[in-house]
């Protein structure tokens, strides 16, 4: 492990760092922005490339939370959406959990770039999540879980 340059306090490359976040929000889309900002900040603390912090993380996460609120919890303010983010130097794993009964991920994705879809207002959420993340999984574990995995771009 390289010694840090004198007085600069050491760089991220020299330390092992893991940041996690756990939160639970009411099913109200106005909370999305704040949660996204928190995870974005973790991404920045870990010196991920700017594009991953400014595009991949916020868009995919905003989509996942919006879907959890609107489809999973049907915008019922009595139902909660839980978000768990776990980030280290190599990858960010985010789980978004709603109180719905789940959905078929493969069958729910459409190709919004197809000529018959391009003028549609909807249908770009899961597609963007898949494009912006290295992996998107859906499973049931104490709720409907959508798990997003982003690996650091070098």
């Amino acid at each position: 492990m390289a010694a840090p340059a004198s007085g600069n306090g050491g760089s991220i490359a020299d330390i092992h760092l893991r940041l996690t976040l756990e939160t639970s929000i009411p099913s109200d889309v106005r909370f999305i922005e704040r949660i996204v900002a928190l995870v974005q900040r973790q991404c920045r603390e870990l010196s991920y490339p700017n594009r991953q912090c400014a595009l991949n993380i916020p868009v995919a996460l905003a989509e996942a939370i919006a879907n959890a609120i609107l489809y999973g919890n049907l915008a019922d303010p009595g139902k909660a959406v839980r978000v768990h983010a776990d980030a280290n130097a190599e990858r960010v794993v985010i789980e978004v959990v709603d109180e719905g009964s789940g959905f078929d991920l493969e069958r729910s994705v459409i190709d919004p770039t197809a000529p018959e879809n391009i003028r549609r207002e909807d249908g770009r959420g899961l597609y963007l999540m898949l494009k912006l993340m290295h992996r998107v999984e859906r499973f049931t574990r104490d709720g409907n879980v959508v798990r997003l995995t982003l690996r650091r771009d070098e």
Partner: protein
Amino acid sequence: MSFALQKQGEIVVVDVEGQLIVGNRQELKQKVLDELERGERKFLIDFSQTGYIDSSGLGVLVSLSKKIREQGGELRLANLNEDLKTLFELTKLDTLFQIADSRERALESF
């Protein structure tokens, strides 16, 4: 986050400050439709102060573009940064919209 509207000649220019997402897209839609109702036909949305856009934000742009065209008007976009450009490319919405690199060029293009 907020939407600032101003008139430049006969063009309505909208600045998207912050995010354009499910939580506020309705506000943008309403503001633009109000202007359309009032008789405005040329619209420019400027993204120079925008953070990120989600799929419902993109959807609102598609829907506005359609509604404006139906009235014989035109919606153009300007100042997408590299990240926002990628978003339009991934969804091929860059083929649906006229996108200018600067506000000036967008204003001239009408």
